[in-house]
C-alpha cells in the first residue's frame, strides 16, 4: 500500500508537465488614437516604389502597408487598399531621352558587360528591352474602380502637386487610380476612405528633382502661394487633411545627398596608371589653364598618376560671356557624381578626362549647398506644422544621418546608407528595399506609439526580403 502511494507521487508530475512555455506579454493598443482606417499620403517612398519602378510586390512591402498590417493588431480594420500594378517588372517614371520618352521596368541585380568587355555585377533592367506599348498600357490602365484606396501616394509628386486639378493627366501614377483624372485633386483622395489615422511624408521630390537632375530642374521655392511655394502648400495640405482626420504622423525629408544615388560614384574615379596618359592630358589642358590664369580665375586642371578628380561641366562658373564654352573644371572633394552617369562613357568615351561630364550627372558644391539649405528650410516647415497640429513626427533626416554615420542594427541586419551592401536602399539607390521599408515602418510605429501612447507591434526586418542576388 505504501509503495503504491509512492509510485503515485512519483508519477504525479506527469499530469501537469506537458504544457509548453508560452510568452504572450504584448498587449496591442491604439492608445489615444484610432487606427480603424489608415490612409497614407506621399510620394514614391510611401507608394512602395523601389528599384526604379512601381511594381506589385514592392507596393506590397511599402512601409505604409506594413504599418497598416501592424495597426490591424491595434484596432485597424485590416483594409489597406493599394492601387497595385499588374506585374512584377513594374513601370518606372518615364525617362526623357533624345529620342523621346522611354518607359523602363524595375532594376534587378545582374551581370552586364561594359565597353571593355568586362562583366560586372550591378543593377540592370529586369527587362532590358521592354515593349513600350505594353508598359504604357500597364501604367495607364485605370484601377479606379477598385478604389477608394488607402495608399494614395503617387511617385514623382511634390507638395505643390497635391492641389493641381488634372494631376492625373500629367502623372499617370495618379491618373491610373484617380476617379476623374481630368479634374480630381490628389489632396482630396484621403477623405474617400473615411480615415481615422494618416501618414504624410512629402517634400522629397521638391528637393530630389533638382538634385537628381544635377541641379538643372528647379527646387520648390519656400515662398509663393498654394501650388507654388513649399510653406503655403504644406500648410494647406495639412489643413485639408486635418479636416478629415485629426490624428496622424508626418515625416520630414532626408538630406538626399546622403543616399547611394549620389554617394556611390567617387568624385575622383579617374585612375591614371600611365605617365604618357598623364602628360597627354596635361598638354591638352594647358590652354585651359592659361585662359584661367589670364582671366584671373582660380580654376586649373592638372593630372597625376593615381586617382584624379573628374572634369565636370559647371554652369555656375563665373566666366565672362565669350568663354561660356569653358564652364568646366575638375570636381572638388565632396562634390557628387550621380549613379546614373554612363559607366561606358567614363570607361571608353573619355568622359571625365577629355570630355567634361554633363552637368546633369553631377552636383557641385553650390548645388549641394542649395540642397542642404532647401532641406533645412522644408524640414523646419514640416516640424512646425507637425507641432502646430499636434501630430506625431518622425525625423527621417536624423535616421538617414545615423545610417550614414554609424549604421543601424536590427535583428542582425546591419543597415547603412551604402549602395546594395547597406541593405537599406533598393537597386535604384534612392528608394528603400523591402527590409529598408520594414525598418522605416518600425520607426514610424515607434513615433506613433510614443505620441499616442499606443502599442502597435513592430515587425521583424528579417521577415522581409534582402536584395536578390543572382
Amino acid at each position: 500500500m505504501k509503495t503504491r502511494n509512492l509510485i503515485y507521487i512519483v508519477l504525479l508530475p506527469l499530469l501537469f508537465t506537458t504544457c509548453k512555455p508560452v510568452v504572450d506579454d504584448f498587449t496591442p493598443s491604439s492608445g489615444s488614437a484610432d487606427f480603424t482606417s489608415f490612409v497614407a499620403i506621399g510620394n514614391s517612398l510611401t507608394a512602395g516604389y523601389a528599384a526604379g519602378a512601381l511594381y506589385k510586390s514592392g507596393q506590397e512591402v511599402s512601409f505604409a502597408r506594413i504599418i497598416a498590417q501592424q495597426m490591424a493588431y491595434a484596432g485597424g480594420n485590416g483594409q489597406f487598399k493599394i492601387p497595385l500594378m499588374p506585374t512584377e517588372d513594374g513601370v518606372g517614371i518615364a525617362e526623357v531621352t533624345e529620342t523621346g520618352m522611354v518607359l523602363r521596368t524595375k532594376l534587378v541585380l545582374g551581370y552586364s558587360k561594359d565597353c571593355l568587355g568586362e562583366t560586372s555585377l550591378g543593377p540592370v533592367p529586369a527587362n532590358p528591352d521592354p515593349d513600350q506599348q505594353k508598359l504604357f498600357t500597364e501604367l495607364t490602365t485605370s484601377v479606379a474602380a477598385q478604389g477608394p484606396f488607402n495608399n494614395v501616394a503617387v511617385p514623382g509628386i511634390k507638395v505643390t502637386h497635391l492641389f493641381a486639378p488634372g494631376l492625373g493627366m500629367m502623372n499617370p501614377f495618379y491618373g491610373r487610380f484617380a476617379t476623374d483624372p481630368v479634374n480630381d485633386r490628389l489632396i482630396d483622395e484621403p477623405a474617400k476612405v473615411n480615415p481615422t489615422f494618416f501618414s504624410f511624408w512629402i517634400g522629397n521630390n521638391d528637393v530630389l528633382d533638382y538634385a537628381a537632375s544635377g541641379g538643372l530642374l528647379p527646387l520648390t521655392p519656400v515662398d509663393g502661394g498654394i501650388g507654388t511655394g513649399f510653406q503655403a502648400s504644406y500648410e494647406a495640405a495639412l489643413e485639408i487633411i486635418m479636416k478629415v482626420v485629426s490624428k496622424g504622423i508626418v515625416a520630414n525629408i532626408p538630406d538626399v545627398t546622403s543616399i547611394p544615388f549620389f554617394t556611390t560614384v567617387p568624385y575622383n574615379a579617374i585612375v591614371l596608371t600611365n605617365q604618357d596618359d598623364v602628360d597627354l592630358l596635361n598638354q591638352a589642358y594647358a590652354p585651359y589653364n592659361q585662359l584661367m590664369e589670364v582671366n584671373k580665375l582660380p580654376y586649373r586642371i592638372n593630372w597625376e598618376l593615381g586617382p584624379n578628380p573628374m572634369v565636370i561641366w559647371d554652369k555656375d562658373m563665373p566666366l565672362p560671356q565669350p568663354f561660356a564654352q569653358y564652364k568646366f573644371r575638375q570636381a572638388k572633394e565632396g562634390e557628387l557624381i550621380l549613379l546614373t552617369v554612363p559607366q561606358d562613357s567614363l570607361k571608353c568615351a573619355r568622359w571625365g578626362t577629355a570630355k567634361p561630364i554633363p552637368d546633369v550627372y553631377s552636383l557641385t558644391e553650390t548645388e549641394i549647398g542649395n540642397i542642404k539649405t532647401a532641406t533645412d528650410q522644408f524640414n523646419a516647415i514640416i516640424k512646425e506644422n507637425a507641432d502646430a497640429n499636434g501630430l506625431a513626427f518622425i525625423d527621417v533626416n536624423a535616421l538617414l544621418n545615423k545610417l550614414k554615420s554609424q549604421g543601424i542594427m536590427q535583428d542582425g541586419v546591419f543597415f547603412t546608407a551604402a549602395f546594395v551592401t547597406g541593405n537599406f536602399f533598393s537597386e535604384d539607390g534612392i528608394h528603400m528595399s523591402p527590409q529598408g521599408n520594414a525598418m522605416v515602418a518600425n520607426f514610424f510605429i515607434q513615433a506613433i506609439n510614443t505620441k499616442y501612447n499606443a502599442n502597435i507591434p513592430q515587425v521583424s526586418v528579417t521577415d522581409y526580403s534582402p536584395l536578390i542576388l543572382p
Partner: protein
Amino acid sequence: MKKIIFFLGAVFLATTVMAGGYQVRLQGNKQTGFGLVGTPMVYGASSNFYNPGSLSFMKKKWDFDLGASFILSSVAFQKSESNYQAESDNPVSTPFYFYGAFKINKLITVGLGVYTPYGSSAVWNDDWAGRLLIQNISLSAIFIQPTISFNINDKLGIGAGFVYAIGNISLRKALNYSGDSYVDLEGKASNIGFNVGLYWQALDNLSFGIDYRSAIKMSVTDGDATFSIPTALQGTLPPSNKFDAELPLPANLDFGVAFNATDKLTFALEVDWVMWSAYDTLSFKFKEKGELLNSDNPRLYKDTFIPRLGIEYKVSDLIHVRGGFYYDPTPTNADYFSPETVSLNNIAYTLGLSIMPVEGLSIDISWLQLFGQKADKNYSPDNFGGTYKNTAIVPGLGISYSF
C-alpha cells in the same frame, strides 16, 4: 549486450541546455533524484564524476552504473516591442553515463567514467526572426575519466581523475542574402582536464564532500564551414572554408554536506560554484577571407553559485525515495544573451526512486522538472531581444550493480 550497444549508440546526441549555460549535471540517476547533489554522498561508481574522494567508500568490490536522461525541453520567445512569438523545437536529448569501479584493496579503488557533462541544443524554425543569430545548434561533449581514489582512513577519502574530453559542435546561422542563405559550421575538439575530490565522514551521520573539476578549453581547429550563398557572392566568400573556434567548459567547485537525521532519512545541501566567467567571447577565425568573416562575439558570462537540497528516505531495503530542489541562476549577461543558449534563472525540483529487487542491483528512476524564469534579454551586437521562457522535463533511468 546488444541492448547496451544500442543504448550507447542512441545517446551520441546533443544534450539540451539543462544547467546554466551549456552544463548538464545529469550524471547519475540517484543524484538526479536527489536534487543533483552528489559531492557529500557515497553513491557507488557514479562518484567517479560527483566526487572521486568518496569512490573508495563503496562497499563492494565491483560497482557498475549505467544510465541516461531524456530531456524534453522547449523555449518560448516573444520579440521585444512586438507580438511576434517563436518556440524552439528542440530534439529530445539524452545525456548518458557509464561508470565502473573496482576496489583493489581497502586503501585503493580505481574507476572509470564515461559521461556527458556539457551540451546544448536548440532548433529554431528556419524562418524565425532570430535566424541571423542562430537557426540551430548542437554542442556535445563526452568525458572519459579514469579515476583513482584512496581511503586514507575510515573517515577520509581523496580521489583524482584524469579527464579526456571530446566534443562536437555544429550550428547553422542564416545569412542576410537572398535565396535562404546560411552557413553551417561543424567541428570537433578534444582536450584534457582533471577531477579531484575529498570526502570526509566527519561523524557517523554527517559527511562532507568537496570536488573540483577543472576547466577544459575545447578548441576546434580546421572545422568545416559551408556557405550556402548566391552565386554572385561565391567569388568573395568561398563556399567551403575552414574555421577555428574555442569554447570553454568551465571549472566547477562543489561543496556539499549530508546529514542522516535517522537511519532512514538523509538531508543534503550542496553549493556548486560554476566558473562561467571563463566564457567571455566566442571567436571564429576563418582560414580564407578572414578579413571578412572573422568574428568576436561577446558572451560575458559570469560565475554562478547553485544551491541544492536533497532528501532521501529509505522506505525499506527494497525501495529508496528521493526528492530535491535547486536554483540555478543564469550565467549569461542580459545584453549579450544569444538565443543559441537560452539559459535563464532556473528553478527545478527532482524526484527519485531506487528499487533494489536483489542484493547489489538497483534500478534508479529519476524525474526532474525545470522552470526557467521568464526574462527580457537582448543580444545587443545584433539588436535582437525579447522575452524568453523555458521549461524542461527530464525522466531518467539508470541501473547499477555491485558485487
